[in-house]
């Protein structure tokens, strides 16, 4: 047995994380080697000393100073309504430019003139979105929460873009993709189901912006009078390698968003 393996087995022993086979393997080594026994004893002693370290405490003056500093610092909790509006307009403008550019490159383009909005204001009317909390449930584990902030997006005749602010929080699986289903003619049948690429939510504190671009819509819908609905699903995958897949709870499996047609 090499040294590295021995150290790992001893760590497993100290933390009560050894399998029965590993226990046998380690027992044999301990019985045969005085050096191994000494090493284990030093790890044990080290652990006891670490646990016995006295707790460090801040002085009252330091505590007071930090509290004052924290409470006097500006708190950028959420973008203001004005910032939201500016951001939304900016996004629309950027995507309009993208759309215009893509149309210009097409040999034959459909008539332009309609946009559909999935806006945060529309979502406010949805029960799920009132809490701004999307609950993900892995197959057999406890419920995890993916916290969703602002969500908006829009469709042009050519493409769909959905912008989402989200915080992985304590979600174990922090890969995320979006599935967008569109009923473009109001017959309660989804005419289009598309999935975005997978995004990595890296677990930093605070919200992260994800922007999903969906492939070009079929041409037959480019100049339709749009009056249907959109369904947006968020699908999480585990990063931990144990095959866990995160999905919405059945009763909260998607956001249903009204489509609104606006002349541009």
């Amino acid at each position: 047995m090499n040294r590295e393996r021995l150290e790992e087995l001893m760590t497993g022993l100290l933390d009560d994380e050894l399998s029965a086979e590993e226990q046998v393997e380690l027992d044999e080594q301990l019985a045969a080697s005085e050096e191994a026994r000494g090493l284990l004893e030093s790890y044990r002693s080290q652990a006891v000393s670490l646990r016995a370290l006295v707790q460090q405490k801040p002085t009252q003056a330091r505590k007071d100073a930090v509290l004052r500093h924290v409470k006097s610092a500006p708190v950028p909790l959420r973008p203001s309504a004005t910032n939201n509006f500016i951001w939304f307009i900016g996004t629309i403008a950027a995507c309009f430019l993208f759309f215009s550019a893509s149309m210009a490159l097409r040999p034959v383009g459909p008539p332009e003139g309609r946009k559909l909005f999935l806006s945060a204001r529309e979502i406010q009317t949805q029960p799920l979105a009132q809490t701004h909390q999307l609950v993900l449930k892995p197959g057999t584990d406890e419920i995890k929460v993916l916290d969703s902030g602002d969500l908006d997006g829009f469709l042009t005749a050519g493409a769909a873009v959905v912008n989402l602010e989200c915080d992985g929080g304590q979600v174990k699986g922090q890969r995320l993709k979006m599935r967008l289903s569109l009923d473009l003619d109001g017959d309660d049948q989804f005419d289009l189901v598309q999935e975005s690429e997978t995004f990595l939510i890296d677990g930093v504190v605070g919200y992260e912006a994800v922007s999903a671009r969906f492939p070009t819509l079929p041409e037959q819908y480019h100049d339709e009078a749009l009056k249907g609905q959109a369904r947006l699903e968020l699908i999480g995958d585990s990063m931990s390698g144990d095959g866990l897949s995160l999905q919405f709870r059945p009763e909260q499996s998607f956001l249903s968003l009204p489509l609104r047609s606006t002349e541009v």
Partner: protein
Amino acid sequence: MACVSGQDFDSIYEEQADYVYNLSCRLSKTRSDAEDLFQESFLKAYRFLPKFRGGSIKSWLRRIVITTNISSHRGLKNKPSVPLDEKPGWKESLPDEGAGPETVAVQTDTARQLEEALSELTEDARTVLVLREIEGLDYQEIADALEIPKGTVRSRLARAREALRVVLEGRHE
């Protein structure tokens, strides 16, 4: 907790400041790092408290301290780990109450050496040791806190324990 008032934060701060400070000290190499981590962690806690969804406030704060510590080291890779005017071993270690003078001296010296040795470990090694030995987290909790596979925890702990042993042994020679 949908909305948290300033008063709620005050009571959380009062209850958890000592815990966060101690964790900040254990995760940091120097006093100034620990002070910064302590303050920065509560700044984030104050900012994100309205988004706290319930559960253990202590676990939530622990996660903030850990991620803040990791972020600060990601951004300061080129910073000298130990400032010239601040040597390791800064942490005051108090012996058991009621211990005799000789015992007190030995305890103090042992704790001081241990803390100095901890400060010489890599960030990864010190963090995993602190979470296991001082925080008492199990492997799954450590894996969740550090966002690493559970299977990695044992090997990382083994390397950390061995590294600490080697440093301590070097100090005794």
